[in-house]
């Protein structure tokens, strides 16, 4: 019996579709489910409109007009080649089409920009206004939004299908709540493992852990080695202005870090040698003059620190993007965003993006098109499932384990120290960017020990402990999958296997809670999934 159940006043809601997470994917999922006729509840840990990584950023969507068709063919062909064998063309066409048709429908709530030639630009939107518009749209469809209401665990029917979730109203005296639903969409985001990536503080991988507890598997979890530049000690991972940056070492020598695909890796190598400084003096004057109306949050950091970025040299760092600008997440089984668990759908960063991004980061464009499209797919399909259900009344079993219901005797867990140790395995360049088999084995051991402590002794008491369990689970899948991929491919870089291995031009699945597993995802029925490695 968890402590949460001891609260006398339980808020209980019955609905058709529950959306977990109110970022970009969750908001589009809620919209689509409601458009399909479903009664929808959306629960967000924070506030739908400011929560998540879209709200503080400026998403550009993958945007290719349908006419001429050759343009989309070329865009998809480029992306297939860049994805190094892990992307799928039909999925790419689908999200291009969905984004093209859906994004302009937000015009009632978002004032799309007009360029200097007077053309409306749909593809590039500003985060705070975009998420504010999505909230208004969601509310206009009669969706019930539960803000400041972290979901702690999923609830299953006796046949294993998902029939709701349970959480806590953290601005309402930690009052427990429970939503019974015909279907659930997890859109709880990815995780940066608590790096200072802008807007990612509440994205602790909760949706991955809950999906795994329900029996779903992950895919692409080795692709967590994405990093984004920011002024040191700041969260401002807005990279546009750095496309024109000039870099220096501590002695004032200019570093050779040209704008291009290798820039992050070269910057990381430079940061391993010592502090790196930067100036934005080469940014074209017309962009300097408009920086505050392109990205109003970027100049805040410089102004408040008294830095003139166009003249001064300021220290920079790289923040880990984890699965946010990386790739991995819950494996999607079909074009509807269904998981392997009946009644459970995934969208956005909560879902694996490999099918549209391949082995490289989707950057802003593919990732945003994915968040929108996968939200639409999952919301629509969840509404269909919920409507087709004959009877809802069923006993529901809570599925949460680690951080809620310990295997053994409850003990106090030092949550802050545990989180710091996850960070210490997932952020350093020598562990997560320039990987080695030996280094991954050492990380695995550390993470296994931490997991055992939380799973065996952590009892319900704080949201933070449950978040820590999710961080640990995600880190373990990432490290185990990275250890199994004995090659370098895209975002995954093994110093001991610097070349690509054609036999590994396939996706890797992972999962498991107390015992982590990794397996090849065979694209055809000709081969059974092979067990590559088992840890712990």
């Amino acid at each position, binding site marked *: 019996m968890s402590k949460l159940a001891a609260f006398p006043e339980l808020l209980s809601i019955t609905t058709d579709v529950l959306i977990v997470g109110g970022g970009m994917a969750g908001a589009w999922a809620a919209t689509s489910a409601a458009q399909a006729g479903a009664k929808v509840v959306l629960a967000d*840990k*924070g*506030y739908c*409109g*400011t*929560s*998540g990584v879209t*709200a*503080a950023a*400026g998403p*550009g969507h993958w945007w290719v007009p349908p006419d001429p068709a050759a343009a989309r063919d070329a865009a998809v062909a480029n992306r297939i080649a860049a994805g190094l064998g892990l992307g799928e063309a039909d999925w790419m066409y689908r999200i291009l089409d969905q984004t093209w048709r859906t994004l302009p429908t937000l015009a009632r709530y978002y*004032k799309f*920009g*007009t*360029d200097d030639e007077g053309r409306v630009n749909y*593809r*590039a*939107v*500003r985060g*705070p*206004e975009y998420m504010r518009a999505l909230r208004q749209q969601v509310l206009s469809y009669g969706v019930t939004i539960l*803000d*400041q209401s972290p979901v702690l665990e999923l609830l299953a029917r006796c046949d294993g299908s998902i029939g709701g979730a349970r959480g806590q109203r953290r*601005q309402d005296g930690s009052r427990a709540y429970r939503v019974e639903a015909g279907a659930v969409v997890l859109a709880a985001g990815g995780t940066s493992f608590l790096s*200072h990536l*802008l*807007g*990612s*503080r*509440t994205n602790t991988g909760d949706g991955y852990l809950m999906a795994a507890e329900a029996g779903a598997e992950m895919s692409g979890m080795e692709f967590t080695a994405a990093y984004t530049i920011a*002024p040191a*000690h*700041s*969260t*401002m991972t807005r990279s*546009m*202005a750095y*496309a*024109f940056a000039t870099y220096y*070492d501590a002695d004032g*020598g*200019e*570093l*050779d870090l*040209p*704008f291009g695909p290798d820039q992050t890796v070269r910057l990381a190598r430079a940061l391993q040698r010592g502090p790196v400084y930067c100036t934005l003096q*080469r940014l074209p004057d017309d*962009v300097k003059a*408009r920086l*505050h*109306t*392109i*990205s*109003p*949050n970027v*100049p*805040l950091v410089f*102004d*408040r*620190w008294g830095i003139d970025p166009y003249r001064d040299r300021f220290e920079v760092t790289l923040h880990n993007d984890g699965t946010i600008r990386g790739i991995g997440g819950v494996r999607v089984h079909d074009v509807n965003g269904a998981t392997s668990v009946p009644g459970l759908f995934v969208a956005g960063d909560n879902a694996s993006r490999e099918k549209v991004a391949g082995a490289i980061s989707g950057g802003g464009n593919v990732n945003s098109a994915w968040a929108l499209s996968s939200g639409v797919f999952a919301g629509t399909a969840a509404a269909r499932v919920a409507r087709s259900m004959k009877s809802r009344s069923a006993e529901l079993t809570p599925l949460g384990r680690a951080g809620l219901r310990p295997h053994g005797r409850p003990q106090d867990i030092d949550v802050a120290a545990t989180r710091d140790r996850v960070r210490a395995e997932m952020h350093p360049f020598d562990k997560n960017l320039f990987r080695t088999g030996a280094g991954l084995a050492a990380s695995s051991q550390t993470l296994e020990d931490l997991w055992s402590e939380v799973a065996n002794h952590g009892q319900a008491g704080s949201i933070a402990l449950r978040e820590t369990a999710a961080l640990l689970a995600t880190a373990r899948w990432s490290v185990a999958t990275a250890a199994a991929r004995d090659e370098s491919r895209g975002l995954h870089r093994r110093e001991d296997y610097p070349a690509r291995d054609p036999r590994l031009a396939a996706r890797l699945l992972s999962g498991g809670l107390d015992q982590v597993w990794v397996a090849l995802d065979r694209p055809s029925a000709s081969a059974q999934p092979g067990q590559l490695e088992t840890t712990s």
Partner: protein
Amino acid sequence: MIELIVAERCTDCGACIEVCPANVLDPGTDGLPVLARVEDCQTCFMCELYCRADAIYVAPDCDRRVSVSREDVLASGRLGQYRRHSGWDEWAEHFPNEQWLMETVFRRAGEAAAQSRAERPEGLGGKK
């Protein structure tokens, strides 16, 4: 992290408490919001954007607390800077949303880098 709410500007509308994604603030007994869990602040500046009274100051420092002088912040003119430059509320007609320019900046950077490569002799000279 959020370091200051200027008491004489705050209208106690509660917006900052409601919109904070990390649940950093609590309602105070005297009306003013209380910075209850600054260590959870993710330095996203959303509270500033939603504060129509321009009463909130978020320091850019995300991994260290800094001392902030109320007088200095008031004198700096930076309260409300984010909301103003975003063209929210009364600033809608003054600051256009030019987010659409972002991709042209990246494209120009790519072209400049390609040109620089073409012009540069083999080898990296004194650079490292």
